[in-house]
């Protein structure tokens, strides 16, 4: 897997974790797991920023443009469908040989693409 894509995946998963803490599992995390929500959010924000700084300049700029507008910066591609916009990605992009070996974006929604499975 492309190392930049791996960084993007990690960033996306952390952003999801942050979103869940503020909009979904807040009570569960605080009451069952004793998570200090504000501290956790601050920690996640710092980690996301640290990882974003490790992205190559061009990718980082694209990342920031997407991240400013949408909660999702990386969309999974499952069975040839981009789950950011539910449009089929081109066959060439979905080919087995070079899946996840380079950073690609969906031509429709702009999300970075990660082929799952």
């Amino acid at each position, binding site marked *: 897997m492309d190392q930049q894509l791996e960084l993007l*995946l990690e960033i996306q998963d952390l952003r*999801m974790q942050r979103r869940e803490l503020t909009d979904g599992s807040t009570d569960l995390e605080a009451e*069952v797991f004793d*998570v200090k929500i504000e501290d956790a959010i601050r920690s996640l924000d710092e980690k996301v920023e640290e990882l974003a700084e490790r992205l190559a300049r061009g990718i980082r700029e694209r990342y920031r443009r997407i991240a400013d507008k949408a909660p999702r910066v990386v969309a999974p591609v499952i069975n040839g469908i981009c789950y950011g916009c539910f449009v089929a990605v081109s066959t060439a992009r979905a080919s087995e040989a070079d899946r996840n070996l380079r950073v690609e974006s969906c031509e429709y929604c702009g999300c970075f693409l990660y082929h799952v499975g």
Partner: protein
Amino acid sequence: MQLRELFVPSAINLDLAAETKDEALKELVSCLGLDGKSEGILYKMLKRRENLGSTGIGRGIAIPHCRSLVVTRLRVAFGRKLSGLDFKAIDEKPVRYVFLIVAPPLEVSNQYLPVLGKIAQFGKEADVPEALAELSSPEQFIELLEAKDL
């Protein structure tokens, strides 16, 4: 959907080889049948969640959990280590029973949080730690969930 329908025998390990929390997380992730790269990413994300606060909820039970792009559907696993693992649990006691829950960012059925809540509730029942200690097969684990109507 009932909790027992989510557990498959290959993801129920009643004798974890792990001696540490990190090893236990890796061992349980390996039960999910993902490729090596995905396992690494998932492990890293579970560790990041643990860094926000231990998922050891006390009474010997831990529920590591996260969402990640590397899975396409909700996945669960159960591991037991009767000699105990240092999980930095809330009650500071060793963890003997580990429930792993991972889910993709988007789920059509939106089961992740309800499943997390159900397992947390299950873990709080007074007789559960003892019942988990007595299990001798993955099938008995499923039967225990059935007996609890989960």
